């Protein structure tokens, strides 16, 4: 082994926090997230010989984590109610009771997490990687193995759907008054 080759530990361990948060959002369960991260690190170590030094270790690890999630975890979890992917809510107009979305800041974590968790996996993962973890779109595309354009269109729809769901929570909890009177 060359002396200059980075060790697995030096490349992978700095991303444990990111991997744990992504796992938590994918599984929505702390114990499952821990197992998923542990599986990911073992699998990554075994695949370390195929990692190209200088390439993006975080995207590489997220890819492995996601593949582990899809093959082992996805089928065994969640019974969230499906969201309507066709009905993409509009942005509020100037007449909206809360046009600048001040209600977002007042929502509790559980409400935001419930809305996030109700998204289909392929929509949730782009939001988690892009908007929660702050990965650039190119890195999201690399981690998920999908074209950049697909990342952008998915994130656009996912955000609108989430915004619509969070608005409903805000209306139900009285943070904003409903835009339409209930019959």
């Amino acid at each position, binding site marked *: 082994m060359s002396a200059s080759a980075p060790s697995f530990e030096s490349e992978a361990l700095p991303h*444990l926090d990111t991997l*744990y948060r992504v796992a938590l959002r994918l599984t929505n369960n702390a114990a499952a997230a821990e197992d998923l991260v542990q599986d990911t690190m073992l699998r990554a170590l075994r695949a370390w010989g195929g990692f190209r030094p200088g390439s993006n270790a975080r995207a590489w690890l997220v890819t492995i984590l996601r593949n582990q999630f899809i093959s082992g975890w996805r089928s065994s979890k969640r019974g969230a109610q499906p969201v309507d992917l066709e009905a993409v809510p509009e942005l509020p107009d100037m007449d909206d009771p809360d046009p600048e979305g001040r209600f977002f800041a007042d929502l509790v974590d559980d409400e935001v997490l419930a809305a996030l968790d109700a998204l289909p996996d392929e929509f949730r993962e782009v939001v988690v990687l892009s908007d929660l973890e702050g990965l650039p779109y190119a890195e999201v595309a690399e981690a998920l193995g999908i074209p950049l354009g697909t990342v952008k269109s998915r994130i656009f729809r996912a955000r609108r759907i989430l915004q619509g769901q969070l608005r409903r929570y805000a209306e139900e909890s009285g943070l904003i008054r409903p835009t339409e009177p209930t019959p």
Partner: protein
Amino acid sequence: MTHDAINCTAALAELDAFLRGELPADSVERMQGHLDRCRHCAQIGRYEQAFRDRLQRLGSGTECPPSLRERIATLLGDEPRSG
């Protein structure tokens, strides 16, 4: 008004990149100029920013538990290495 001002369609198309801080400097200036003039786009910008701030808050503060870190360090130490 500058002659290279952008309209609402162009501004909204670039809003995402603007909020992510990924616009080149000259485009940022044009975008900021538009947002200063257009109340509607400014309102949408603030709405999108409020939404993103809330999502970002979910991601912050959660770290890999120390017990998991230790478990992984032990597992990695036990794993046979090639090379």
